[in-house]
Every structure is written in structure tokens, then in C-alpha cells.
């Protein structure tokens, strides 16, 4: 295994034993970025090489002084471009935040820096995390490392692609309706959406506040468990972060499923899920049974309405969250305007891309007098029902097993003209955000060389069980050493 392919836990052991230095690790990743970034396009902003190496040198110096090393000390990491970080511009891949340097750090970023992680840069995404392909970015194209003609998924496509391509060891993304898990599935890496309230949202630029969670990407389950442990925990600066104790997630990783009852909700395998995905999930279920799990089919009858409810609630919250972008205090301001209303209109009109504008309009409409009960109110009722159904199902099962996405990665421009088709690629992930539950996606097979994602959904604040299942499956399926070929772009 090349050094740039080492997982974080292997790097940690190497650093502690003196097998490698943090500088060597950082150089390996920087060299890898130098080789493939022009093909993949995972990053929006990379820190200067000398700054990255200075951080790595500081870790080596600390090791020489005999200081203890945290799990991500000296590990090259990437963050999504919607997490405030003083070392980088934070733009949410939007023109409206051009040149915005936050004066403070997101709590998750602070916690990683507290571990002396080596921050490489921030990654591409759909503008304001609205999208499922990273095509809605004002910052350029990110390509799927398994097939450069296909999308990496979204909205955290840059983070998923960076980890898959070896341009970062681990990365943080954010998941509002599947934005960590779906790109993890498309890029063949592991991605986890924590329970709502598990990870602080402070400093995460809000898309839909009641759904957003920061989540980890890694090339194996152990790295994802460790990274979750590094960023999780109560934060007094986020009133929605829960004071739940953070367990030792790594300790939950045992390679069997004995004694676990799992449900397979049939609504997640309904029409729209491709045959090869269905087949891969069926095979995965067989393997889980071999590993000692008891698996049954079950039903969550309201889930088919989840996508509709989500596309009311998320845009409604977004329409309000995005009201602050008007060019007065930060970000891009339209030039040559003569009054506030014109400045406001033109700054937003020039600054936001079409998908963001569409969702602001959808959300504004859904909250308007006379339509509120019909749309937002109804969607909240559906959400309540979905929460209840998940709660009931999970009282009988330790976790639920579903596909992460209905298909493998699709091609560029394939769904750009049809927003409803694009939205449908979140059909398996959105219900979990509405219910606030944790879910993890990991590779469970390939179709024509493209990875397929398997999703485990757990009880609230029980990430341990889904990590254990993912770990057991990963060890038994042994797909994790398959790496993307990264074919050079055509032309």
C-alpha cells in the first residue's frame, strides 16, 4: 500500500512508532494531489504547501518532545467548503460568498485542529449543499475517481472524491438529505451521517437547520468511527447539540453480527432502485446472515412521502437561512446600485446559482400566508409520522438495511435539466434526515466498475451498532482494498 493510501489509524501507528514522520505523510498526500487533482477536481481551496508542511513539522516536533498524539495528529484531512475556517476562504461553492474569510472556526474544525490534524484545504460541493452531483457548484467540476465521466454524487462530492482518490486520508462533509452518504456510495468510500445533535453545527453554514449534520468520510469503517469520535460531543454554542456522552466508537468495532436483528424495509427497494443495486443489497443481506444477524423484511409505509416532505421542509428553512446573504456585511455586493432594495436584489440575483434560487422560491412559497398549512404544515405532519414509524421499527430491530442510492453514479448533465430526477437520487437517504437518525454508507459491490452503497440505519445516538455492522460487513466482504483507477481526462 502506498503511503498516501494509508488509513488514519495506520498513520497514527506509524507516527507513534517512528516508522514514518508527519512530514512524509503530508508530502505523500500533497504529491498525490499534485498527480490527480487536475483530473478529479476535489478541492476548491488548497492551503499553501509550506503551511501544510509547517503543520506536519509541528506534529513531528511534538512527537520528538515526547508529547502524546491524538488519533488525527499528523493526519492530512479535508473539510467541505461550508465549514467556517480561518485558514481558508469559506464560499459554499457560491459566487455570493466570493472572498469571504470567516473570522471564526466551526466547532468541528476546531476539534480537528485541537488534535493537530493537518488541514489540506476545503472541498467542492453543490452550492450551499443543494444538489446530489456537485454539478451545482460555482467553483468548477469534480469528477468521480472511478469514472471521470461521471459525477461524484453530492452535495459533499469533493470530500468523497478526495478520500476515494487518496487526496485526503479522511474528510468532513455535511449531510442534509444524503449529502455524505450518497457521494460516499458513488465514490466507494465510507460515509456516516450522525444522529441529529451528535456533532455541533456551529460554524457549518446552514442549509436546512433541522436536518443538517456534519459527517465523516474515510476509506474504512475504523477511520470513520475515529473521525466521528473526534468531532462529536456537546457544544454550548449549538443549542441543538445534545449533551449525550460520546462513546468510544472504535471499541464498538467487532467483526460479527451475532444477536442482531435487522429489518429490511421494502419501501427502500421499491421501483426506481436499479436491478444491480437490488442484487448487491440482496447479496449483502446474505452475508450479514452468515455473520450471525437475523434479517427480516419490514415496512415503513409513510417513507414514500418522505421525499415530498423533505422538498418542502428543507427549502423552507433554506429560504430563511439564506436571507442573510445580501452583500451588506460580507460576501459579494453588486456594483453600481443606487438603493438598498436594488443592491439586495442584484447581489442575490448575481450571487446565487439557479438551483439555490429555485429552492429559495420553493421555500418562500411553502411558508407563505395561505399556503403554510397546505405545504409546510402538512410536510411537518408527514415528518412526525415518519419519525414514529422509524421509532417503532427500530424498537424491534437493532438497525435497518437499505441501499444508499437507487443507482450507481450517473453521468454529467444526465439529470441537470430535470430537478425531480435529481431529487429522486436522495430517495433512500432523505427519510433518515427527517427522522434525525444515524446512518452509515459503505461499498457493497460494483456494477461495471462503479461502486454500490449499502446503508445501515440505527437508533438515535446509537452509532455504535451501525458502525459494528458496517465493520463486520467490511471485514467479511473485503472490498476495501479496491481503489479507483483514475483514468486521465479525455482530450
Amino acid at each position, binding site marked *: 500500500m502506498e503511503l498516501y493510501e494509508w488509513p488514519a489509524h495506520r498513520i497514527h501507528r506509524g507516527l507513534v512508532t517512528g516508522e514514518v514522520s508527519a512530514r512524509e505523510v503530508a508530502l505523500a498526500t500533497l504529491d498525490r494531489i499534485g498527480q490527480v487533482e487536475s483530473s478529479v477536481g476535489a478541492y476548491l481551496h488548497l492551503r499553501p504547501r509550506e503551511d501544510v508542511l509547517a503543520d506536519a513539522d509541528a506534529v513531528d516536533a511534538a512527537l520528538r518532545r515526547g508529547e502524546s498524539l491524538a488519533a488525527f495528529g499528523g493526519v492530512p484531512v479535508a473539510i467541505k467548503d*461550508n*465549514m*467556517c475556517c480561518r485558514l481558508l476562504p*469559506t464560499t*459554499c461553492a457560491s459566487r455570493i*460568498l466570493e472572498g*469571504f474569510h*470567516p*473570522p*471564526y472556526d*466551526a466547532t468541528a474544525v476546531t476539534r480537528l485542529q485541537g488534535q493537530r490534524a493537518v488541514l489540506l484545504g476545503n472541498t467542492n460541493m453543490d452550492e450551499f449543499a443543494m444538489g446530489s452531483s456537485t454539478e451545482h457548484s460555482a467553483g468548477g467540476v469534480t469528477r468521480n475517481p472511478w469514472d471521470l465521466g461521471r459525477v461524484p454524487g453530492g452535495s459533499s462530492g469533493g470530500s468523497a472524491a478526495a478520500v476515494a482518490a487518496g487526496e485526503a486520508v479522511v474528510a468532513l462533509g455535511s449531510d442534509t438529505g444524503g449529502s455524505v452518504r450518497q457521494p460516499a456510495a458513488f465514490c466507494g468510500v465510507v460515509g456516516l451521517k450522525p444522529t441529529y445533535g451528535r456533532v455541533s*453545527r*456551529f*460554524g*457549518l*453554514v*446552514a442549509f*436546512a*437547520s*433541522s436536518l443538517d449534520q456534519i459527517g465523516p468520510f474515510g476509506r474504512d469503517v475504523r477511520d470513520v468511527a475515529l473521525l466521528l469520535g473526534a468531532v462529536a460531543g456537546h457544544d*454550548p*454554542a*449549538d*443549542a*441543538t447539540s445534545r449533551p449525550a456522552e460520546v462513546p468510544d466508537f472504535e471499541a464498538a468495532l467487532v467483526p460479527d453480527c451475532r444477536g442482531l436483528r435487522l429489518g429490511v424495509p421494502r419501501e427502500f427497494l421499491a421501483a426506481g432502485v436499479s436491478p444491480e443495486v437490488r442484487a448487491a443489497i440482496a447479496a449483502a443481506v446474505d452475508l450479514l446472515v452468515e455473520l450471525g444477524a437475523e434479517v427480516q423484511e419490514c415496512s415503513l409505509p409513510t417513507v414514500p412521502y418522505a421525499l415530498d416532505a423533505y422538498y418542502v421542509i428543507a427549502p*423552507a*428553512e433554506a*429560504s*430563511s437561512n*439564506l*436571507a*442573510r*446573504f*445580501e452583500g*451588506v*456585511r*460580507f460576501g459579494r455586493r453588486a456594483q453600481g446600485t443606487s438603493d*438598498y432594495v436594488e443592491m*439586495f436584489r442584484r447581489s442575490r440575483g448575481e450571487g446565487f446559482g439557479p438551483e439555490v434560487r429555485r429552492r429559495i422560491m420553493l421555500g*418562500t412559497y411553502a*411558508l*407563505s*400566508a395561505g399556503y*403554510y398549512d397546505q405545504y*409546510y404544515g402538512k410536510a411537518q405532519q408527514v415528518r412526525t409520522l415518519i419519525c414514529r414509524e422509524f421509532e417503532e421499527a427500530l424498537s424491534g430491530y437493532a438497525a435497518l438495511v437499505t441501499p444508499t442510492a437507487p443507482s450507481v453514479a450517473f453521468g454529467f448533465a444526465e439529470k441537470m435539466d430535470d430537478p425531480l430526477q435529481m431529487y429522486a437520487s436522495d430517495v433512500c437517504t432523505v427519510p433518515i434526515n427527517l427522522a434525525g437518525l444515524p446512518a452509515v454508507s459503505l461499498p457493497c459491490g460494483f456494477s461495471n466498475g462503479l461502486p454500490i452503497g449499502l446503508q445501515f440505519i440505527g437508533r438515535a445516538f446509537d452509532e455504535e451498532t451501525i458502525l459494528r455492522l458496517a465493520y463486520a460487513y467490511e471485514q467479511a466482504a473485503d472490498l476495501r482494498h479496491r481503489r479507483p483507477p483514475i483514468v486521465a481526462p479525455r482530450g
Partner: protein
Amino acid sequence: MSVGTVEQRYETVVGLEVHVELATRSKMFCSCPTDFGAPPNTQVCPVCLGLPGALPVPNARAIEYALRAALALGCEIDRECRWDRKNYHYPDLPKGYQITQYARPLARHGTLRYAGGDGERSVRIRRLHMEEDTGKSTHEGMPGGTTGVDLNRAGVPLIEIVSEPDIRGPEDARLYLQSLRTVLLYTRVSDVKMEEGSLRCDANVSLRPVGTQAYGALVEVKNMNSFRSVQRALEYEVHRQAAALDAGERIVRETRHWDEKRGVTFPSRSKEEAHDYRYFPEPDLGPCALTEAYVEQVRASLPEAPGARQARYERLGLPAHDAGVLVADPALALYFDRMLAGGAAPREGASLLTVELLGRLNALGVTVGESGCRVQPEQLAALQELVASGVISGKIAKDVLDEMVAGGADPQAVVARRGLQQISDDGAIVDAVRSAIAVNPQSVADFRAGKKQALGFLVGQVMKATKGKANPAKVNEILARELG
């Protein structure tokens, strides 16, 4: 054509919406200070600037203050009250929405009782909710045609107190506000300075023919910045609407602004009324989740209500007006209570406080409870006791008080040091009386000729000779005997 006065023909129906800034040291959702008058944009942080990714965290002290006010107004408390977003765009509103309480306010169904023009008034409180203040737009000191935004005030905690339409006219509105102010001062939740904007008031006013029940079209009046201007604006509005109704016109539902200088209300641009605020639950904040024990603890900590205090003072023998003067100012009332605890007689003590001490403090530009007031309530009580027990006269007491105000000395010490004890010894007074009679034969003759004021002159001569220390009652008695 119209018979009788406006008041005889129409009943005025007023509801008031009052915004009160809470006197917390930090803002509603961040830890920035709330001091008034700081240079623009110096009391701000990512949260109150509405920077991307910043999140609100409720200020527990602000919730406590709001709860104190709600309990003092006898409201029912919603212990699971929620936060909502009120969405609209304005340059001084950094997030593009205000965090407020819409569907589930902190409190409902309260009552404010106060003395009205003709007997006790009782106005129902519809709701009391918490919210954050906006910033301020300013043109002052800005280059021509540009607008500056000062966000120091953005995020300062407010409560909004909405009355039912139980207020029956302009004067009643002023009395309601004054009474509300007293309650807020007592609960120490706000310093209630209208001129600094810590109390702001909007009025909904309509007229209906006397004897009818249906409400007339509602006109909202804004921009009144003193209790007096509330009364004036409403008086103007009542007459304007009455004149329109008399002329057979319909009153349009609208928002009008009060112009203090011209003394008129005028319609504000209709755009402002077209707002659809798109309220929805604030997803960044959960419900308040106040425990019953906490609410009861706050309730138990409330000071005596103004109405109860007024009644207590009257039971002690104070005239209603004097009691009212004390009750209207919590600092004064608390001072008076300490005087009572220090042994002062209620009626005499109240007069010593409100007439003598306040008169002297006014001249110095300070008031009780401030560091400039060097007379402690216990010391003032002691002074009153010296008079009551005949140690010094009321006149001497004023001299002693001068010295107390200037130097903070104990009255007993001043009296002892300056030998001001009253002379009640008959022998010494008889000597002074005889001497006064001897050197003022003309006055003696005048008195005997029936000029009663001559007696006053002779008393004055005796007091002068005794340096004011003679007991005046004794002097009168002995003079009458010696002249008789």
C-alpha cells in the same frame, strides 16, 4: 348635526403593544454587552452580526427576566414555549429574520390593575413574548445619500406585552403605560427609559358609537416616544376618526405614524403593511422547557406588587397621594421600607423623605439609591425619631438634615456635637421669656391691644435667644402665662 362631545358619542377602544428592552448585561442569543451609547458596531460578534454558520444560544437571564415580568402581570406561563422566525428584509436586520415567539409565547392571559380617572381599572394582557431587537439604520455622519447600519442593538433582549382592547381612551392609555412601567421597575427587568428606546409603544385604536359592541376599523399608530406623546397621538387620532365618522366616511384599516412636532398622525407607506412574515418554528432552538420548580422559584422571588404596596402604605396611615408618590418609584419605596424597619413613624417619615430629603437631593441632581445620596434610610429614620421624642425640634431637624446630606453623618452625632438638644427645662425658658418681654415693650403692648401676630414675634425672639433649641410648645405656653 352631531350632538354631544366626541367622548359622549363614541367609545374609544385601544389596545397597546409595548416592547420593553430587558436590562440584562448580555444579548438574547450571544454574549455581547447591551450598554447603550457605545460607538457603532463595537458590541457585535458573529452571532448578532448574522455571519454564516453562527448559531443562537438563549440567554437564561433574559428568560428569567421575561418570566418575572409575566408572573408580575399574573400571566399563565407556557413552560414549553417555542421560538419562531419572523422573516423580512431590512438593512438593520442582519439575519433576514427576527427570532421571536409567535405560536407559543411565554405567557398569556394576564391582568394589569391600576388607578384610573374614575376608579380601579383592569386591563387584560393577551400575551407576553420574548424576542430579539433589531439594529439601527442611521444617516448621521454618513456621506451624502448613504445609510449606515449600527448593529450594537441587534440581539438585545425584548419582551412584547400585548394588551386586549380594554383601554378606553388616550388618558387611560397613559395611565396603563405608567402602571406597566412601575411593574417593570419593581420586577427590575428593565430600566424603562422611553427616551433611550428601552420602552416602545404601538397603539391599535378604533372608535365605535356608544352603546354598540362591534369594533370599528383598526388603525395602528406608531412612533410615539413618550407617555405624553402616546396620550397626545391618541387624542389626535380619536378626533380625526370621530370627524371622519361624523362626515359619513369609512375608517380604513391602516398604519399611521405620529409626528411629534406637527402633532398629527399620517399614513405610512402601504408597502410596510403588505408584509407576509412567513413565521415558522426556529429550527436552531428547541422549546424553552422551563420546569415547574423553576417557575415557582422565580415567582417566590418577586417583590411585593405595586398595588399591594399602595394598600399597605394606606393602612399605615399615609394619604393615598403620598403613598402613590412612594410606590411610583421602586427606589423610593424600598428606601421608605427601610426607614420603617429603622423605626420611623410612617406619616412623618414619608414627609421627611419626600419633602425634605428629596428636595435637598433634587438640588444636587441625585436621587435615593444613588451613590450621591449619602443619607441612609436608617439615619433618616433616626432623625425622625429625634423629632418625635422631642430631642430636637422640626426646625432644627432641617439643619441636621442639611449636614447629613452634605457629609453623611449620623443625626445623633450632629445633634450631640453641635449641642442642638431641645431645651425643655422650664427655668431656662422662663428666663428667656422674661427677657424678651422686658426688651420688647411695644410688642407686649400690641399683643395686649389684641394684635395676635405680636405673640409670634415674641416667640421668635425667645427661639433666637435659645438658638432655636427651646421646645416651641413650651415657649408658647410660658409666654401666654407670663403675658396673662
